[in-house]
């Protein structure tokens, strides 16, 4: 029998991981909801930002918070760049072409990273203590990541809820044509959305580099998980994605302790497949 304290620790770790996953899922979902395109290479943008933080902090000795801020800015720039260079020219074409184009970006970024930085795993060595709460050992890095993720999501919520541009982003995801009749240039709304989505990737990168090492195939590890969370929550549904992040991270984390890390992922994927049969529109998605 497993010591209940390990289970509790796993549950808390799952919660902490869920916060960072939610950032990724919300970023991807925001872009999908507004522009109607799934950025296959989304987590690969995170990977590029993680390298940026790694080099700034580990090689050039910048403080981690400053590296994080640069990562957010870089993410936003990458988001705008992806939209202008890849999405914008093919906006009107068939969805499969758009998927292929962002899929192509994924391979480009992976190869680009391998070519420049080799396949070495690199991590930022910031010594952060482990804290003990009631017999559970929790990593301070994860606690910080969780807290920052929650704050950023609160900021995103307030932005989407209370600003003109944020409300327009929600409106465009419901009716693209009508928003142009209100005087909003759709191109500007798309660019702001891409920048915000990219910035979220940048935040996630700064938080992930505290816990994981970065390598060119980082996107392959977290990308599929992010897509599954978005689909599980109902593509385009922000609240659904938020909840699904925590469901998936708990399954992975608790499954990992009860069986093994690999089994944790297997269970999560099986759970996902079963859920998609049971609710094809996602847990909060509209029924077809």
């Amino acid at each position, binding site marked *: 029998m497993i010591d209940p304290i390990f289970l509790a620790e796993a549950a808390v770790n799952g919660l902490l991981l869920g916060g960072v996953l939610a950032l990724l899922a919300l970023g991807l979902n925001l872009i999908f909801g507004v522009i109607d395109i799934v950025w296959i290479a989304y987590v690969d943008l995170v990977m590029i930002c993680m390298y940026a933080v790694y080099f700034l902090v580990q090689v050039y000795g910048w403080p981690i918070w400053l590296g994080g801020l640069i990562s957010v800015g870089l993410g936003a720039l990458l988001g705008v760049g992806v939209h202008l260079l890849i999405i914008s020219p093919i906006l009107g074409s068939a969805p499969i072409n758009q998927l292929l184009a962002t899929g192509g970006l994924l391979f480009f970024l992976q190869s680009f990273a391998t070519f420049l930085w080799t396949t070495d795993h690199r991590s930022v060595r910031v010594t952060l203590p482990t804290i003990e709460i009631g017999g559970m050992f929790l990593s301070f890095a994860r606690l910080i990541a969780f807290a920052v993720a929650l704050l950023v999501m609160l900021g995103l919520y307030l932005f989407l809820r209370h600003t003109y541009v944020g409300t*327009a982003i929600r409106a465009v995801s419901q009716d693209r044509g*009508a928003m142009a009749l209100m005087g909003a240039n759709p191109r500007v709304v798309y660019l702001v959305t891409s920048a915000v989505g990219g910035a979220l990737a940048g935040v996630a990168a700064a938080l992930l580099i505290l816990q994981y090492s970065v390598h060119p195939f980082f996107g392959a590890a977290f990308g599929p998980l992010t897509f599954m969370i978005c689909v599980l929550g109902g593509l385009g549904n922000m609240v659904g994605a938020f909840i699904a992040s925590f469901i998936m991270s708990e399954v992975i984390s608790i499954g990992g302790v009860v069986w093994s890390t690999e089994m944790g992922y297997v269970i999560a994927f099986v759970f996902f497949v079963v859920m998609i049969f049971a609710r094809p529109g996602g847990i909060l998605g509209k029924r077809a």
Partner: protein
Amino acid sequence: MLALRNITAGYGAFTALWDVSLDVATGEAVAVVGPNGAGKTTLLRVISGMIAPRAGSLSFEGIQLTGRPAYEVVARGIAHVPEGRRIFPMLTVADNLKMGAYLKTARRAYAENLERVFGLFPVLSERRRQRAGSLSGGEQQMLAVGRALMSRPKLVLLDEPSMGLAPVMVLRLFDLIRRVREEGYTILVVEQNVRQVLKLVDRAYLLEAGHLKMEGRADALAEQDFVRKAYVGL
């Protein structure tokens, strides 16, 4: 105020409007009536910039607007209440109205415009926190009109405001549009409900299979012949 000259427009290989010329003067209310598929919606879409005409020109207050995108046209003072209302169903009534005031100039006068719209449609004020999708059809149409007024337009384009509404609601809605008119807005309305709309407007055009067939003062056109033609296109 608004002048269309020899407008031809359509979708892909299909031509919906042929050589249409039409004028609306400041302060006027004008209707375009005609049977289903006559090109009425296409006409409004050309004016608001949702589609570009293939030929012809469009000017508003002397400024050429031919082929300009929708977000520029609305900034010139033309608000379009589109077919099927196109409100944002998941946003609250208040947020829908806020989006109507998206233009920088409209944001500055937001509070004042909101008061004016709530004065016209008190039910929107009562339901401001409700999701727009939960409103009744008539209330949704009021919201669509109110949202358009939030941009402080000079000309309001109304596409089939009575569509899908119960007969009682249709009468109420026409009453409300009459009040909007009395506020000083210039109106171009497209309708299938010919009898009602002729009581509302000064002039009307008959559009049939993409061609303008008749034009005249509303009271003169309220004769049997025009109404019959508008309904059945004969």
